[in-house]
């Protein structure tokens, strides 16, 4: 049986690996290539790279960096950041990415999700949904958390699933980098409303915390700070549970 996945979500900015808190204050955590080698040695389930600089200030996808990443990645990986067109998606798959993550482009142009699913198969199209509460109500944000949309996360998740997304990356901006645990209520609402896998993201503090996301219905748990920092004083240390530990924590589920 398939086991739920524990997925390091790594943020790129100008070719370096960074980590944010509530999508702000990126601090340097290391070199992407070295980090991938360490994660490969640790047998991680899957990696997710999000370039938080791409698509901003005229910067586009850093193809050279991604080629380097693909050469070292002996595990499935997804990429997001600045992706706007079918052609760019095709190039990413050819390079070796299993999945491409769409965020702003999926909101502004849902037809891109449908066309990509038709062309490349829905399993390779991930829509990322960034959620933040505003006066007590959750909204979908795009443009790296800088633009609030009118969309409700639940409605948007259903729309994206209908459009052909194969997976949703559901991130709580409020919890990002805070070690406060996932927004479990949000995960539960979204995962029960769609039939495609949901990956929860934002706030995981421990393997136990990651389990809470899985119990809430997520098929995978994305982790950031937890795998790049040691302890809450944020000393940089790349880490990942041992295979045995992971098997015992997650067991075999059917997702």
């Amino acid at each position, binding site marked *: *049986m*398939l*086991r739920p*996945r524990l997925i390091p979500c790594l943020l790129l900015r100008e070719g370096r690996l960074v980590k944010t808190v509530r999508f702000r204050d990126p601090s340097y955590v290391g070199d992407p290539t070295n980090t991938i080698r360490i994660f*490969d040695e640790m*047998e991680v*389930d899957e990696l997710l790279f999000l370039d938080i600089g791409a698509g901003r200030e005229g910067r586009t996808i850093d193809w050279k960096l991604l080629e380097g990443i*693909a*050469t070292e*990645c*002996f*595990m*499935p990986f997804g990429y997001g950041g600045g992706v706007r067109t079918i052609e760019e998606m095709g190039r990413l*798959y*050819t*390079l*070796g990415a*299993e999945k491409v993550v769409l965020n702003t482009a999926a909101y502004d142009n849902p037809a891109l999700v449908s066309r990509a699913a038709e062309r490349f*198969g829905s*399993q390779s199209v991930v829509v990322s949904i960034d959620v933040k509460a505003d006066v007590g109500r959750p909204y979908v944000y795009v443009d790296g958390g800088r633009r609030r949309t009118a969309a409700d996360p639940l409605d948007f998740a259903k729309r994206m699933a209908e459009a052909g997304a194969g997976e949703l990356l559901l991130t709580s901006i409020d919890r990002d980098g805070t070690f406060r645990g996932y927004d479990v209520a949000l995960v539960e609402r979204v995962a029960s409303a769609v039939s495609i*896998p949901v990956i929860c993201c934002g706030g995981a503090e421990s393997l136990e915390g990651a389990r809470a996301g899985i119990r809430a219905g997520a*098929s995978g748990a994305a982790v950031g700070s937890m795998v790049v920092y040691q302890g809450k004083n944020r000393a940089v240390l790349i880490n990942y549970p*041992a*295979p*045995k530990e992971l*098997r015992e924590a997650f067991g075999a589920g*059917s*997702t």
Partner: protein
Amino acid sequence: MSTPVAIVDYGIGNVSSIRNMFQRLGVLAEISSDPKVLASAERLVLPGVGAFDTGVSNIRSRNLGGVIRAHAVEKKRPLLGICLGMQLLFEGSEEGSESGLGLLAGAVRRFPPEPGLRVPHMGWNEITLTETATLFRARKDDAFGELTRPLSYYFVHSYYVDPKDPTDVAATATHGVTFAAAVERGNVYGAQFHPEKSHKYGMLCLKNFSETQAC
């Protein structure tokens, strides 16, 4: 000059990941769609992601069917099909109407619908080797002897192979049904999973494959 490993490029699937892993293992692997290059290879890898009929027609339009068949049947050289590439070794698929290469007897079937079972079967799953398996088995004398958990591989597929001869099955996995995760028949090998995306577990298969010889 013969090439130790050639990866068949027929416009479907991700060939560079497979080459990257061979490269890491120190094995020279060439990506090619040139029948001459493929004909001179000691070992062939047939990759592939996508639809069965697209795979068949891409092989046909590039005139590669004859080269692959000659390699496996006449020269008896090692051939490894991966994912769709493995399915194409069989006679046909429920996914399409085209005939496969027919190097192995049997069909390709869709996962039967079952409540709570997600298709595609996507993610890490453990495989169980059959007694006769060779390619997917760690040996004591290699660097992969000490694997830390049961053999676990990354899968993405909606169809699985159903070999006519049960002795062709080299490993099984379970997703609703128990299916052939890997096959072996003489010099013809197939993996439903993606060794090139399965860390050292994948390296183990590709390393063993790079050491196979014509029968």
